[in-house]
């Protein structure tokens, strides 16, 4: 029986390496628990939805474990709600992967697959590799809006444009609202959204827990903010 929740609840949908997210949290001094328990999730100061794998499988597991409403209401409290890789994709309204699947709907927009084989022949002679596996750079998006720096007040705010992060994914998100597109990355000539969010909700397509010291600093920033008592992400 837990007397208090861990600071960070890492949602357990059994997909992907949840353990490295927890390791990263521990490394920066955050207590973190991999959990599917609603009480534990609600008691946390921040929520991380990680994952590598299939959108449909993940949503099915979240539904089976009654976590869909838990995540939605956590996001509504204003506490930091962070999606990593598949987690970001699950934040969207839906995905075209293997048919139509409904997501958590925290960020309007959908999930699409990189390069159909028909497209790829036109882009270059060599087939673009799918999934994208490896290091690529992230850049602040230049969107319409009154913000000067879309990463200000997010865990990415101290990172320079062009920071290398580790990506492994076959799908990308396309937020419907331009102001939700916070950062982009270019792969095989195609520029897509790699950082998305609004308010306390932030999703990153890359794996900060696998992106060396710069990636770790993203977790470090979260830790600092929680220590400072701020509810901004």
């Amino acid at each position: 029986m837990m007397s208090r929740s861990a600071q960070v609840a890492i949602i357990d949908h059994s997909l992907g390496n949840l353990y490295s997210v927890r390791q990263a949290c521990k490394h920066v001094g955050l207590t973190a628990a991999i959990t599917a328990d609603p009480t534990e999730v609600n008691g946390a100061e921040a929520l991380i939805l990680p994952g590598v794998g299939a959108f449909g499988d993940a949503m099915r597991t979240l539904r089976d474990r009654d976590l869909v409403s838990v995540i939605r209401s956590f996001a509504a409290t204003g506490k930091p709600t962070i999606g990593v890789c598949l987690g970001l994709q699950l934040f969207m309204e839906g995905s075209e992967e293997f048919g139509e699947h409904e997501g958590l709907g925290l960020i309007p927009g959908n999930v699409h697959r990189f390069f159909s084989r028909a497209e790829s022949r036109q882009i270059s002679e060599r087939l673009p590799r799918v999934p994208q596996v490896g290091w690529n750079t992230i850049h602040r998006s230049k969107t319409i809006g009154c913000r000067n720096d879309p990463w200000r007040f997010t865990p990415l705010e101290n990172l320079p444009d062009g920071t290398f992060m580790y990506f492994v994914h076959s799908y990308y998100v396309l937020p419907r609202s331009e102001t939700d597109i916070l950062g982009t990355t270019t792969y095989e000539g195609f520029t897509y959204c790699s950082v998305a969010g609004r308010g306390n909700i932030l999703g990153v397509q890359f794996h900060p827990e696998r992106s060396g010291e710069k990636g770790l600093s993203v977790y470090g920033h979260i830790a600092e903010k929680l220590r400072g008592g701020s509810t901004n992400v």
Partner: protein
Amino acid sequence: MTVRIIPRLDIKGPNLVKGIHLEGLRVLGKPEAFARHYYENGADELLCIDVVASLYGRNSLLDLVERTASEIFIPLCVGGGLRSLDDIRQVLRAGADKVTLNTAALNNPLFIQDAAETFGSSTIVIAIEAIRQPSGHYECFTDSGREATGVDVFEWAAKAEALGAGELLVTSVDREGTGRGFDVHLIKVIAEAASIPVIAHGGAGTIDHVVEAVMKGEADAVALASLFHYEALNSITFDEADFGTEGNLEFRKRGVGFSKIDATPLPRVKEAMSDAGIYVRPVE
């Protein structure tokens, strides 16, 4: 897309080892020290292969994976004797991001599909050990190049991809540890036909070989062992206590390297690749 440099660590029990052509295994030291050295010097990922791969050897490997994953925050791929979904699950729970499969996949190709569906394609790397035959064909081998399978490498590469493999790790067993260079033809044929990443392995003796694997072989990533380990040995401070009592320790005590291979620091490899116009992640 950056080309990834992936140091490969062959593990036997608690030790990092290196197989040398006609010589057996040399014990080089504690894997954790090498892993940390590479992490701090720009490694893009790490590849850990259990070369003993027996039922009672796994605990050592799992311990190593756990320790490495808790301190080293780059992707970790682990392989060696993984035969079931449970084996894979164990390794992933210990902290690995990906696994490589060879024997189990050749014995039962549908295992690739099962594993890909269960853990995600990108988690499953199919390792191909290729030996060139007199006919010019390449045959798949298992058990560090000791067991023939009769399976054609190029056909197997295509089949593995179709079954859901996320990446292909292609080793030229003929070239491995010799320092004579990669088998560029082997890599190129596979890379041109594949739409998943291809990691070249086996034979690097100089920086030029690495550049060649990418420029001519079209590799998406390069796994390196000999090229790095001897330089690492010179750079890392070891205690005598780091060594167990097993293995070929003589050469370590003599303080020599391996004459056909330039002991090369990882940052130097990336520098040379960059000079050649290859996009690599800079060393931080």
